[in-house]
């Protein structure tokens, strides 16, 4: 049974966790690093060049204190969004969810949890993330996946 078929059988609900699925970027020939670098801004772009893109750094989970090894780009993205408000005005829902995952080190979050953080309806988030179109690699974590 293919992954797509299984995903269609196991329908996500508001408690189903989502994350950024890096494999989706590879499968869809999307260059993850290029996309993220476009979001960095001039100052952090310089920092990235200084540190080197292949370097790994210790990122600390702001909720648990757990340390995760991250490449410099991901680390800088998490840094960039760590101080920004989750409920930022003017952001699309997809952008706001994507930034939240970058900020929290891509820790899985359910639609219900995202709804709480972003102050948006959980069902709307669920419909957006579990539809046929995958936005920026954000997909549910199903048991078989």
């Amino acid at each position, binding site marked *: 049974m293919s992954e797509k078929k299984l995903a269609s059988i196991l329908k996500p609900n508001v408690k189903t966790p989502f994350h950024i699925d890096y494999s989706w970027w590879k499968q869809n020939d999307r260059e993850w690093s290029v996309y993220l670098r476009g979001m960095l801004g001039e100052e952090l772009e310089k920092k990235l060049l200084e540190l080197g893109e292949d370097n790994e750094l210790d990122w600390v989970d*702001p909720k648990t204190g757990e340390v995760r090894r991250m490449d410099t780009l991901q680390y800088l993205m998490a840094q960039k969004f760590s101080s920004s408000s989750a409920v930022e005005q003017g952001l699309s829902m997809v952008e706001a969810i994507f930034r939240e995952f970058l900020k929290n080190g891509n820790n899985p979050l359910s639609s219900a949890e995202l709804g709480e953080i972003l102050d948006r309806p959980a069902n709307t988030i669920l419909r957006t993330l579990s539809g046929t179109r995958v936005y920026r690699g954000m997909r549910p974590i199903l048991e078989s996946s």
Partner: protein
Amino acid sequence: MTEAKPTSEDHIWTKLNILESDLEAISSHLLDIESPLTPIELAEVVVRYRMELLASENVEGGNVLDYIPKEQYEIDQKLLFPARGGIEGKISGIRKADTINGAAFQVMEIEFEDGKRREYAFGLSQHALNEIITEDKEESSDPVVEIMESGGDMIGKSVETALQENEDFVYIAGRWFPKALTADFSEGQLNLAEAVLDMAGGGPLSTDEILAQVGGPDGINEKLASFSLDLALQEDERFDEVGTRGVVAWFLKKLEPNDVQNTPLFLRYEEIAHDRNLLNDEMLEIEKRIYDELSPIDEEDEDQGNEVEVRLIFPHWRSGSLPLTNSLSKLFPSAYESPRVRFEFVDAKSGERYPGWVVRDERYVDGLRKWYTQKELMPGSYVKARKGEKAGEIIVDADAHRASKEWVRTALIGADGGVVFALLKQTVQSAFDERMMIYLPGNISALDEAWKTKTRKLETVVLRAIRELTKLSPQQHVHASEIYAVVNVVMRCPPGPILALLAQHASIEHVGHLHFRQKEGQEE
């Protein structure tokens, strides 16, 4: 109280074994605060001391700590991770952190109970968990308070027992303090205290009132000066502590009423041996309802609520006292330890006040002689007592009605103090119990004299009482409570021995419902 250092077994709070080290902790705390404390307050001192000991054992003994990112840890330290549901892990490795601004924290590898390994930051000054865990600790109720709420009384008792066995501590009015730290009062100061109380009619005066006149030692705080004076007064036989619970008040012993210093003649009881197994349910029930202070009544059986009604018997009527039964003792002021407590009776109608004394050991309350006379009460009259609005006040009421002429049992006293009874019409001033009413007209000094000089035998007195009362009864039998009231006109005796005698005496016949008569042909 043996070992100096507590073991883990000693920390079972409800069964706390007070050790020498606990007493040292108490002593050093009292030295710091220079104020005596109650057993409950001292129990808290002990609990805090033990908690500190436990905490230091945790650090030394490698016990499990909560993971807090800002703390410093070493390899092999066991940690609990609240953000992971409180799971326990052990530090298996430590390394420097790779960060963009140099290592501002360190990374430790944790091996969890389930075998998984993860890395956590420590020595990290800025992290949300630092705040949350600290706040949790602040917000969660103090463990000492929790322990005190659940077992404070038990711990307080253990502390008190340990202090009682230790000569280094002294106890006054519910508070303890190391004897060596109390201030001395000279003989001259105590003589002055005596003079101060003398001038106040004996008292009562508070310690602070006396201290203001006597003057305290220099350089010690007021509480300690007050406690030290209490100790000096307590150890001097001239003074008597007569305050209610929580209030220390002093009285000059020589000026206390004679009936407070010595049990009144009419209330003195020579124990009469009797078999309580002879008392049937009906007898036990009436024994309870008579409310005699000498009866062995279970406390819970005797609760009459906020107002207690007493039927006077001759000994209390003549002594101007009330029986300190369990019900009454709940109304009257109590004290931590003083055997005599001074308070005030207040007349329910006039508001007039009468000094009263609770004599705890002898179980009577003194101070109503004048009031009984004013109200023209008699043995058998009802007296109601309830708590006053202010602490230390008892309202008394005699349920007086307009004077009426009624046929009542009248005791006629012979010149030798002998008593015979007749039914005569008398003017009665208050409500009374018909069975226990005994009208005593005129001078009864001959009866008083007989109480002083004659030794009575219960059997003789009971048989004579039945004979006397039977004469006045058309049915030719008498009720147990009538016999009890009449017996007590000539000797002090609680219902128990009388009822036991009625139950077993060969010449007394029970005719039902606690009515008795002397068997025919067996009269004297």
